[in-house]
């Protein structure tokens, strides 16, 4: 069953916590991965791969660069999840 927006944000928060050590409550829709959450370009790839597995979605390399905020990623996953 497709995940809701709330579930996706919660899932991303767990992933970002695991990869970058950021508290889950800091991971909000308006937060930038790079500027607010200490997720650099390489950690972002790890976040994306973990999100792909968790939400059954494919996020090609070309699309990764457009995912600046948690909101961007959430919207992408909502639209593309299997």
């Amino acid at each position, binding site marked *: 069953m497709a995940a809701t927006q709330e579930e996706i944000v919660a899932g991303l928060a767990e992933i970002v916590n695991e990869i970058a050590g950021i508290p889950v409550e800091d991971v909000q829709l308006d937060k930038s991965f790079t500027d607010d959450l200490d997720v*650099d*370009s*390489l950690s972002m*790839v*790890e976040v*994306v*791969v973990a999100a792909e597995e968790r939400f059954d979605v494919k996020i090609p*390399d070309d699309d*990764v660069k457009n995912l600046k905020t948690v909101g961007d990623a959430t919207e992408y996953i909502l639209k593309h999840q299997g």
Partner: protein
Amino acid sequence: MSKIKPSKGAPYARILGVGGYRPTRVVPNEVILERIDSSDEWIRSRSGIETRHWASPEETVAAMSVEASGKAIADAGIAAEQIGAVVVSTVSHFSQTPAVATEIADKLGTQKAAAFDISAGCAGFGYGLTLAKGMVVEGSAEYVLVIGVERLSDLTDLEDRATAFLFGDGAGAVVVGPSQEPAIGPTVWGSEGDKSETIKQTVPWDKFFPHSRLRPSGGTPAGDVSDLPLDSQGNVKFPAITQEGQAVFRWAVFEMAKVAQQALDAAGISPEDLDVFIPHQANVRIIDSMVKTLKLPEHVTVARDIRTTGNTSAASIPLAMERLLATGEAKSGDTALVIGFGAGLVYAATVVTLP
């Protein structure tokens, strides 16, 4: 029909000795920062690299190879005359022909050993090792010298902040010879040419040398450099290695972890049986993520030679192997997983017993 006598090789092959050569000049991140807007902290956090070695004009691809090979031959306890074949993997020897392997074979004092170069980028060591194992077991050479050597400083764009800090120079060599026990596992290798744009040379040589218009095929009109990249001084940039960082990272960490696992499975070795992991020294972040993805146990020693050597492509695995053995972090007889991956894209992984 006449009967052809078959060749006779050894039952198995093993790595008998390893040697490395690192250029004298040590280049800290401060030197790299003279040309790019970045910081020591940024370079270390993205790559793990603190210093790398850059070769002098005298430290040629051949000269570095001869030094590393001499050590590997001594470590193997054989004489250069016993070497039957020399396989050199490099992408930074600037003469198209002859192969640099022939010069190395001659300078080492081999007795007309077969000698040739291969081009398999950062997977070159594994490709060479696989060929060497085949030769020893099949019987076309009793001892084979496998060399990975690069002068990547010659192919580095010092004004590209994504790669200027990444590459280093050096040579690593191993001697592969006969064994009564299996000591080099099955190779899991392959290529993904559909991803050839991910890591590549910025400009092909024939385009960089515009006066090549007298070639039968024509070529670029003399002086037409209008579509070639320029440096900050307005000069045409020398060809360099460029890569798509995120795409390479994803492929290296997640696809190559699968290949590494396949190599373990093919050799019948569980992660618990493994002593040492020597991945291509591409980037410490790739190494750390691979270790995590592979779920390697704590006791496995992981090579992180990249910190003081940089990415030396085909040379990185034998250089890291030599350093682990020299420092005592790994010992002779240890079981090691080696995996190389890079431009092509190409890859090769296998399990070996350390010399």
